[in-house]
């Protein structure tokens, strides 16, 4: 097994991925908690506050200076939706010492700093620093308002929001402007303490790792103060077919219309995620895909038209940028592709092409440090343990019959169009 997983404490896992492909070592901490309307904005605010200062390095300036001294160690943190969960992600990347002008062990230093940022924040009187909270609330407000800036992403967000009204997955990962006023530095800190003591924590290390890294992690004072926790993440609920397709048209100043179509995967067959991956690739990934061929190449209606599959939610999102007056025409062609999939109107060659594409995605996992970490984190969340070889084999075995069976259980949930 390439990913060596050990439990540090109940609910806290340490994953070591040994690899010599990179000039860097990458460390990551993922804190996973339920996604709720009540806390969504606080989660996003936390990522912003934590990067402001630690007990040892009280200001962002000191943190930045420390990172720069470490040959520009890369630090980032952010927040992602993982199905109905919210994951706060921290990353720190350091250069492997063999590529430095003068030898220096940056890995231990980097890992300690990462723990400090995540688990040892700068506080004053049992609260986050007031000024930091005020500033970060303002910044987050602007990020939330900035949702409209990228029209294509905005359209995608809106479509998902419509598909999951009142449900966790419909929430915007950065939260909501109206929540910000009521969050105080004290409440947020209390919430933070609860988050780090109750949430699932996954720590990742990738690169040419030291043999005693596990000990180093266990002995880190920040890790020692974490309590064991019982975390049982639920797997997704069953989906039911929607009675009527939602169709939403909204206006904004755009020169190009942004069309988004959300599909539900209602199939329950064995290996459904792997079969859906193949279905999605034939439909909308790459230039051989039905969407690209028919919407762009044959009808010349779009520059982009593709689809994307979210495993955890069992949905496929189709996106196209089109001339506004071509809405009906594009929609009709896209619907026709879905019908053709149901009728099995695709060849063995289409299937093989799609498999080849997925094989290269699989082969690529190990070639990027963050992608490899994400893969193993996905396995962790899905409570599965599929190796990269097994993954490939599962794709290899899928037949046309299975894809057609699945296609019959794929239905449009929402059609969203952003136009002028």
């Amino acid at each position, binding site marked *: 097994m390439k990913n060596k997983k050990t439990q540090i404490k109940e609910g806290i896992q340490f994953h070591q991925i040994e690899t010599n492909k990179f*000039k860097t070592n990458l460390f990551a901490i993922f804190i996973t908690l339920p996604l709720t309307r009540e806390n969504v904005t606080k989660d996003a605010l936390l990522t912003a506050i934590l990067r402001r200062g630690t007990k040892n390095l009280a200001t962002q300036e000191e943190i930045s200076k420390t990172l*720069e001294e470490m040959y520009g160690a890369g630090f980032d943190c952010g927040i992602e939706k993982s199905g109905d969960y919210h994951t706060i992600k921290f990353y720190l990347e350091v*250069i492997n010492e063999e*590529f430095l002008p003068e030898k220096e062990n940056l890995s231990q230093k980097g890992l300690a700093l990462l723990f400090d940022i995540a688990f040892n924040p700068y506080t004053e009187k049992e609260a986050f620093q007031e000024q930091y909270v005020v500033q970060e609330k303002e910044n987050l407000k602007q990020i939330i308002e900035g949702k409209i800036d990228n029209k294509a992403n905005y359209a995608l967000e809106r479509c998902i929001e419509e598909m999951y009204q009142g449900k966790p997955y419909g929430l915007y990962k950065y939260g909501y402007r109206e929540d910000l006023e009521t969050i105080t530095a004290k409440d947020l800190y209390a919430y933070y303490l609860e988050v780090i003591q109750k949430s699932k924590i996954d720590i990742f290390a990738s690169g040419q790792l030291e043999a005693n890294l596990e000990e180093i992690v266990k002995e880190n004072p920040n890790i020692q103060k974490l309590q064991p926790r019982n975390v049982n993440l639920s797997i997704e609920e069953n989906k039911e077919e929607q009675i009527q397709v939602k169709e939403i048209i909204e206006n904004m100043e*755009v020169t190009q219309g942004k069309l988004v179509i959300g599909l539900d995967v209602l199939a329950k067959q064995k290996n459904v995620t792997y079969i859906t991956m193949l279905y999605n690739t034939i439909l909308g990934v790459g230039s051989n895909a039905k969407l690209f061929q028919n919407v762009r190449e044959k009808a*010349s209606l779009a520059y982009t038209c593709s689809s994307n599959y979210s495993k955890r939610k069992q949905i496929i999102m189709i996106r196209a940028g089109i001339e506004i007056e071509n809405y009906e025409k594009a929609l009709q062609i896209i619907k026709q592709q879905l019908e053709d999939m149901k009728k099995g109107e695709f060849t063995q060659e289409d299937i093989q*092409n799609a498999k*080849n594409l997925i094989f290269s995605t699989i*082969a690529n996992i190990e070639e990027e440090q963050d992608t490899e970490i994400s893969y193993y984190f996905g396995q962790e969340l899905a409570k599965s343990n599929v190796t990269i070889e097994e993954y490939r084999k599962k794709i290899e075995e899928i037949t046309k019959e299975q894809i057609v069976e699945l296609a019959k259980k794929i239905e449009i949930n929402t059609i969203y169009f952003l136009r002028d």
Partner: protein
Amino acid sequence: MKVIESLKIKEKVYIEQFENGLTVLLVPKTTTNKKYAIWGTHFGSIDNHFIMPETKEEVYVPDGVAHFLEHKMFEQENGKNSLDTLMALGVDANAYTTNDHTAYLFEATQHFEEALEELMDYVQHPYFTDENVEKEKGIIAQEIGMYDDDPAWQLYMNALDCLYKENAIKIDIAGTVESISKIDKEVLYKCYNTFYHPSNMVMVVCGNFEVEEMLKKIKAKLIEKPKQGEIKRIYAPAEKEIHKPYKETQMEVSQPAFIVGFKDRVEAENMVQRHIAIEILMNMLLGKSSPLYQQLYQEGILLAQPDLDYEFTKEYAHVLFSGQSKEPKKVQEALLKEIQRQKENFDQTHFERMKKKVYGDYVVEYNNIADIARMLLADYLKQIQSFDYIEQFQSVTPEYTKQILQEVFDEKKCILSVVKAK
């Protein structure tokens, strides 16, 4: 064959020039499962006026031709599209056009040989018809529409408009709906025959392979072409001064976006050292730990560290600071003040720290074979050997950097481009 090795970064590049003029750069790496091949021609959006080497005909081409040609190269006489063929092999294929070059590339974990053959086939066999050229106009018009809605792109184009009066870098890479309407197959063939000659091209392959074998494979697929003389490219003369200090436009954005730019002179000497010094300086001025960034962040004027870029070829050179702010003018004023302060009071410790950071940034570039190959290609076309960024690093002194600060970050060469909210 020439071999250049960097002991610091532990990489080697093998350089071979074939008889027909094609240059090949090979970077073998045993630790990856992948191979990445990129074939570039020194032909970009700025090359809109030139003299054909054989006929000596002087040609003006419509804006957006290089990019249009890139789109059309995939189409084959047998009705197939090479991009589809490559994707069907499971390789990740693509192409792109920049100001100064066009490149065709793919990345493979399997079927590399078939893919390389396909790449070399389609790049060497153009097939343009009236019909297929017409059809492409609709697709490219949509691509242009996509950029029209992109505030970041509009901001950048306006910054270039401030920096240059006549320079061809101001031409939108994709052209305009109007300019591409004038493109026909004759124009495409003229450009193809001029710029897609091996002597104007370079191929880079990076990944897991044997050098000699790879060279053989490439050689075997090259078709014979008569030697070609030099292509004379005609550009507007270099302008010392900026075009205008300020330009703004309004779009539906939540918050204004800005670019503060400084025009640099072209054809400066020691471009690698100059580039390193400028990167260090940009970081000293507005990097994460810089006093100015800390101040503007505290004041809520900057939300995130601006992007720092230095772009240059023989035809243009400029420094760009781009970000979002509710008060772009304040950012510019504060930056100019900070430049003045650092000119008078150069902080050596800060310099050493940013130098380390910039070194780390260069090393990280070598994490990914695609990044390596693309970097080698882009640098080669600028007549730069990429490893020099690592090798010459130590030679960038505080004294030299101070001198560059005085020279490049000049208030008279400063522009501001703003996209305002409606």
